[in-house]
């Protein structure tokens, strides 16, 4: 994907790319460090439909959502030949009993047969996390397993 980087003298930098839908999507990074998500209008790619200021947390969350989806899509692609295997994402909610707990404590593999293949956190990917990795609110867990296994993993993560 070709990302255009353009200097905005006195303001900062704009980084964007043209999506297949004909819209330009990107970010404006200000010199002061703020970041803005920009999306162009459909009929004039030069102008912006929306410029949304994002805090660091919001940017990281958006990054998780998009990145998790991307990883899940790739995994589903890889597992397509294996019937019955599905990829799903779980987020650690604010009320999850496993906030700040090592992942091993949930015993997900033992109890549901599901494997957690990656954790998305603040835009970073932790591949093949071990049982000692601490879970945090906002983490996105990418899990692979059977439909039933994933259902019970979801319930474990939610209710303990």
């Amino acid at each position, binding site marked *: 994907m070709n990302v255009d980087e353009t200097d*905005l*003298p*006195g*303001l900062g930098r*704009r980084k964007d790319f043209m999506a297949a839908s004909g819209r330009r999507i990107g970010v404006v990074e200000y010199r002061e460090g703020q970041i*803005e998500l920009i999306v162009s209008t459909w009929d004039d790619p*030069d*102008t*912006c439909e929306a410029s949304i200021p994002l805090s660091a947390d919001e940017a990281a969350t958006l990054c998780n959502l998009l990145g998790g989806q991307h990883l899940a899509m790739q995994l589903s692609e890889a597992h397509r030949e294996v019937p019955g295997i599905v990829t799903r994402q779980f987020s650690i909610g604010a009320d999850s009993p496993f906030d700040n707990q090592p992942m091993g404590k949930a015993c997900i593999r033992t109890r549901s047969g599901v494997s957690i293949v990656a954790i998305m956190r603040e835009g970073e990917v932790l591949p093949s996390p071990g049982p000692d990795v601490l879970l945090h609110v906002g983490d996105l867990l990418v899990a692979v397993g059977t439909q039933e296994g994933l259902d019970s993993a979801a319930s474990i993560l939610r209710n303990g």
Partner: protein
Amino acid sequence: MDPLALTLIDLGAVVFCLGLLARLAGRIGMSPIPLYLVGGLFFGAGSLVKLEGMHEFAHLSSEIGVILLLLMLGLEYTAKELVTGLRQSWQAGVLDLVLNFLPGAGLALLLGWGLIGAMVLGGVTYISSSGIAAKVITDLGRIGNRETPVILSILVFEDLAMAVYLPVLTATLAGVSFVVGLQTVGISLAVVTVVLVVALRHGHRVSQAVHSENSEVFLLNLLGAALLVAGLASAMQISAAVGAFMLGIAISGATAHSATQILEPLRDLFAAIFFVVFGLNTDPASIPPVLAWALLLAVLTAATKMATGFWAAKRAGIGLPGRFRTGATLIARGEFSIVIAGLAVASGVVPQELAALATAYVLIMAIAGPLAARFVEPLVSMLRRPSKQQAVGTIRGA
């Protein structure tokens, strides 16, 4: 009454009125500059405020206002941005200079104000208001637009052009001979080059010299350095404003950013006094006779800025609506046109009518510019829609 008390009351009343005007400007979403000018004209006309007791103070304050305006203009762009901007957009910059300097210069010649008058009025019509343009771009949410870098790079070029123009203007106004004038131009070009090189290579050292974690120390360092450099530049006949501008360019990075924040309130105060004093010194009765000329000049130079922006945006591969937006955003003239006119009036070698014309012209452009930038878009899409519907109709028909 005690003269000091009277002066304080006068000054307080003026500053308080400026506050009201700035609030009004904010409420209706326009630049406060035209309101300050009108305020100045009004105070002068009604002889409400004679500024007698504080004549010295008002004069010095407005000088400091100019220095701060230019210092912050220099702080706005880093040396790297200036050099890259010059390299990438000099064609558009030169077109901008030619198209927008000539109408002002031509009118001055037509009105018989001589070459000096032509040089002043050309400068007044040439320089867009980077302050108003930046505010328009931010307010209308156009920072992410693709034409925005085109607009900014033209403003950057104008910035650099000012660094050469102002010393030349100062020398011309001082009435120096051609040879001395050439020397001044030579010196200022050399100074501009040296400052850019120093800023590129050793900008952090200049920044370190004035920087301090303590905001009080920082403010005093910064202001002291600015006034010192401005005074020295003035002694070298380069123009105080350019000295401050150069210092602004040499200060870079994080220091420049915090300098902007720390100086902003001071700039707002002193620049407001500068605009009012300029308005005060203009006789309101001298405006109606030149109003028609000001309107003509406004229409003409709105068209030339539009053409400049249109051409520059087209070259950058921007679509039709974006080209109109580029041109319209550049239309606003403001603070720097008044700075130029102010320098000329202070020297006393240009006729009073020039100040009146410049005031009327900036009043029109500072109000019309943001309006044009706002309404050019719906206008263009209205013009475009019929053709689009036609196109759809043909496809359906086929």
